């Protein structure tokens, strides 16, 4: 066959094809969960206290108010890890006896409208005897701290440890030890569509259909059926159009369990639409970490060993399916990042507190570990008196495959090349001249670099290594050419903005020689798509794309076999292109539509040699690959106000084969925007009583168009050997590198003052505090008046 792929290969893959998703969405014809009508609406009554005992719940007369006491036989959400001294913390569907964070659902009010449910909820009185909360993870680790769960003494839900043999010896040989204490404050992923669920009971079948804002419909079905003790086949889960997820919508929400329970009990339809305040305080949080990182270097600034202590605030419960391990264990596994360092010691703890439960958010820990490591590299460069670019050149991985100190195998990537590409494109000497001139005028510019690796498209072995009870990874795609010659692919992934319906169609089109407009991708419904793990972790294009390619290869083989029969030619002479099979060098040809029709309706012609129909399935479970990039930020810091303006942002990235450049660039730029929020703006803040004070989008501030700098993208395509489409994932890279690059740039801008800032977001207050600290230091010898 290889002789005849000419003319069919790479026809659609690689094109910036317009998205098939868009026409409906720009006309307001998207179907989102909250668009569905319902007979009953739910309002959750949430705890106003961070910690306390529930003494009583006073319900208004005649109101339908469900509490934990009503949910007899309903199990608790109990995610499980079989490693890392994990404590199986269990979450009741509605708070039982105690409340553990502000926003925890205590009761569910059911009424005929949202407004009525809200009115009744206001009348429900919670009698809670407050106890002392603990909010900060370091406080929770202190002796005598309040215990969040009896099963987790000392509030440690898990502790990962790793130490390479020979670490101590190498550490002792170091010429310099550089230490950094990094702090990443708490974030909310903030999809523009908050959570919503709609459950409806069908009296004929006895089944419930749950439509909800999820990134993984099949696993939601499994999980909810488990918790409710019902047959999984009696539950259908639909993820319709979903308004962004970014990880927040991949965990099981107790609210959805309540909806399914109510739909069965009321034999009716029941809906809940989360408001923004609920989303900000009671959905899932992320990124709340302290990392102490120490690095041993030899005299030539070559990194010898890393020593990390990760404290991850996981909130009040463990999230399903990833568990609270999602952040600390990711930090432990990938801390060495893009650098060649074979000695590594790490302790990574997940710590329970009286705060909203932590779950995955785009990048998962890697924005933090990249921030920490890249700050440390800049600090080390200063200590050695060398350039920030030079220290990276000396330490970035450049031979492949590379096995990390944690045993991860890095496939071929371009850490050095993207660094060189980025620094050349940004023109560092020109910037330094401009920086010097600006300083003379009292303006402070800075340039920051971040290099990083982004592990993507990893299958079940990677999740199994974490000891997960639920081990995601593989994907299945069922590809059919129907009797009219049109193509449909049913996929287990569940895209919600990534454009997968477009990119998978591009892959299929090339493989079977048709145009994408005759291909439909069906997803997001457990009744119509094969079991799969959904869309998260920069996996869908690699894994679902790989499964798509496998299925398409099988369909291609079948089409060639049928053509060979019908055209009476050798399979080796069949060319599949432009919607038809042709015998090479002749005008003998048959359309794919005609072949498909025969495959269903004229099967006798194939004398039992070809199976009827035209459906093939592909399953793919790859080991994982590594994308990489170098981000460069140029900023100007107003030292009077502490305000940072990003003047320019540049990316040189390598995500393997790019299937659709428009969509790929959109993922990178969208990620950078979230990274800018992480670097400068977004912070969930609790007061000392554990009350969140950032409960609107005026307090918790995602970037607007005004905060976005001009962004320049450069690409290298290193064809991955670990992905059959050769594509690596790139959904998270934008937000992984941006905080490090931006905060390194701020520190560069502040360098004349000797100020250092190792905490994100780098708000004006923190920038000013760093300046004040530096200028009050006895080491300050500058002549400049105190800014």
């Amino acid at each position, binding site marked *: 066959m290889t002789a005849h792929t000419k003319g069919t290969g790479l026809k659609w893959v690689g094109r910036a094809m*317009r*998205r098939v*998703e*868009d*026409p*409906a*969405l*720009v*006309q*307001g*014809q*998207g179907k*989102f969960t*909250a*668009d569905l*009508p319902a007979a009953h609406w739910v309002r959750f009554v949430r705890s106003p206290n961070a910690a306390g005992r529930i003494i009583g719940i006073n319900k208004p007369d005649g109101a339908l108010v469900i509490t934990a006491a009503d949910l007899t036989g309903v199990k608790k959400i109990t995610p499980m890890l079989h490693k890392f001294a994990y404590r199986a913390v269990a979450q009741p569907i509605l708070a039982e006896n105690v409340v553990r964070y502000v926003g925890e659902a205590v009761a569910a009010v059911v009424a005929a409208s949202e*407004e009525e449910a809200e*009115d009744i909820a206001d009348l429900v009185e919670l009698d809670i005897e407050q106890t002392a909360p603990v909010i900060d993870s370091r406080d929770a680790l202190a002796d005598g701290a309040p215990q969040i769960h009896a099963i987790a003494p000392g509030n440690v839900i898990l502790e990962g440890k790793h130490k390479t043999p020979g670490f101590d010896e190498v550490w002792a040989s170091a010429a310099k030890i550089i230490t950094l204490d990094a702090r990443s404050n708490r974030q909310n992923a*903030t*999809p*523009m*569509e*908050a959570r919503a669920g709609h459950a409806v009971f069908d009296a004929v079948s006895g089944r419930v259909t749950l439509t909800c804002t999820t990134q993984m419909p099949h696993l939601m079905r499994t999980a909810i059926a488990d918790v409710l003790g019902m047959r999984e086949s009696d539950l259908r889960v639909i993820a319709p*159009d*979903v*308004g*962004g997820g*970014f990880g927040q919508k991949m965990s099981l929400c107790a609210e959805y369990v309540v909806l399914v329970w109510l739909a069965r009990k009321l034999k009716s339809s029941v809906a809940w*639409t989360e*408001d*923004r305040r609920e989303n900000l305080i009671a959905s899932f949080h992320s990124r709340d970490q302290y990392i102490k990182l120490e690095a041993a270097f030899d005299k030539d600034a070559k990194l010898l060993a890393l020593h990390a202590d990760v404290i991850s605030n996981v909130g009040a419960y463990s999230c399903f399916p990833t568990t609270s391990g999602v952040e600390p264990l990711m930090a432990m596994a990938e801390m060495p990042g893009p650098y060649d360092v074979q000695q590594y010691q790490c302790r990574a703890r997940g710590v329970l507190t009286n705060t909203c439960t932590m779950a995955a958010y785009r990048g998962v820990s890697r924005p933090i570990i990249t921030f920490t490591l890249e700050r440390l590299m800049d600090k080390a460069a200063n200590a050695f008196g060398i350039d920030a670019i030079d220290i990276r050149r000396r330490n970035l991985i450049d031979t492949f495959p590379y096995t990390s100190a944690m045993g991860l195998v890095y496939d071929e990537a371009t850490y050095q090349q993207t660094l060189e590409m980025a620094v050349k494109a940004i023109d560092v000497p020109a910037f330094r001249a401009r920086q010097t001139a600006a300083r003379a005028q009292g303006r402070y510019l800075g340039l920051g670099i971040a290099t990083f690796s982004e592990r993507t498209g990893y299958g079940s072995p990677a999740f199994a290594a974490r000891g997960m009870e639920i081990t995601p990874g593989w994907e299945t795609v069922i590809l059919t050419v129907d009797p009219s010659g049109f193509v449909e692919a049913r996929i287990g992934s569940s895209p*919600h*903005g*990534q*454009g997968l319906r477009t990119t998978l169609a591009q892959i299929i089109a090339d493989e079977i020689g048709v145009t994408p407009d005759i291909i439909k991708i069906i997803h997001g419904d457990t009744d119509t798509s094969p079991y799969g793990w959904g869309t998260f972790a920069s996996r869908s294009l690699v894994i679902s794309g790989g499964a798509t390619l496998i299925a398409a290869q099988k369909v291609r083989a079948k089409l060639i076999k049928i053509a060979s029969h019908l055209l009476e030619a050798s399979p080796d002479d069949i060319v599949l292109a432009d919607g038809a099979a042709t015998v090479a060098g002749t005008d003998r040809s048959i359309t794919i539509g005609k072949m498909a029709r025969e495959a269903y309706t004229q099967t006798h012609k194939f004398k039992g040699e070809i199976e009827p129909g035209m459906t093939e399935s592909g399953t793919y479970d790859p080991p994982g690959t590594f994308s990489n990039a170098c981000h460069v930020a140029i900023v100007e810091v107003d030292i009077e106000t502490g305000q940072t303006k990003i003047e320019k942002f540049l990316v040189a990235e390598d995500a393997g084969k790019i299937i659709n450049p*428009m*969509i790929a*660039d*959109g993922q990178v*730029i*969208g*990620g*950078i*925007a*979230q990274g800018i929020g992480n670097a400068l703006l977004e912070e969930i803040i609790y007061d000392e009583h554990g009350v969140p004070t950032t409960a*609107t*989008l*005026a307090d918790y501030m*995602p*970037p*607007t*168009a*005004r*905060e*976005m700098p001009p*962004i320049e993208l450069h690409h290298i395509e290193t064809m991955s050997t670990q992905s059959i489409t050769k594509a690596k994932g790139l959904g998270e890279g*934008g937000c992984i590198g941006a905080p490090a690059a931006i905060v390194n740039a701020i520190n560069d801008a502040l360098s004349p003052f000797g100020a250092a800032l190792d905490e994100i977001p780098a708000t004006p207050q923190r920038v000013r505090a760093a300046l004040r600290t530096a200028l009050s230091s006895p080491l300050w010898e500058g002549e400049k008046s105190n800014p």
Partner: protein
Amino acid sequence: MTDKTNITLTINGHDHAIAVEPRRTLVDAIREDCGQTGTHIGCEHGICGACTVIVDGEPVRSCLMFAVQAAHKQIRTVEGLASGDTLHPMQQAFMDHHGLQCGFCTPGFLMLAVGVLERNPDISDDDLLDVLSSNLCRCTGYQGIIKAVRAAAIEMRK
């Protein structure tokens, strides 16, 4: 709060006779009483702009306006942008310049941009950026939206 008032909302030229409580927001009335679910609710605080519609020629946050205040006014929503099968230049530009990913904020951005450009077709790029900063998008990083609106502005001036 349950006494309802009879009002008529005129959405995209069609009259909807509905009965609403005085406290009912315009966005809830558009979505639930009039069944036009293309307008989305992102925050109900008037911050994100997902619910932006055009009322008597002005882009407004329909979560901050009561339905009764919009009675007898001309309301335009995303459903009314296209003319039959022909998309509005703004819709076409959002598709051409990758101005959307999940599409949840898109109706609000479309109505904001159309409303502003109809009033001020020659708005400067910098003022346009200020306008677009009044709505939130979490997916695109805005670059595609900004390009799309600038491209549509040129088309709309033709």
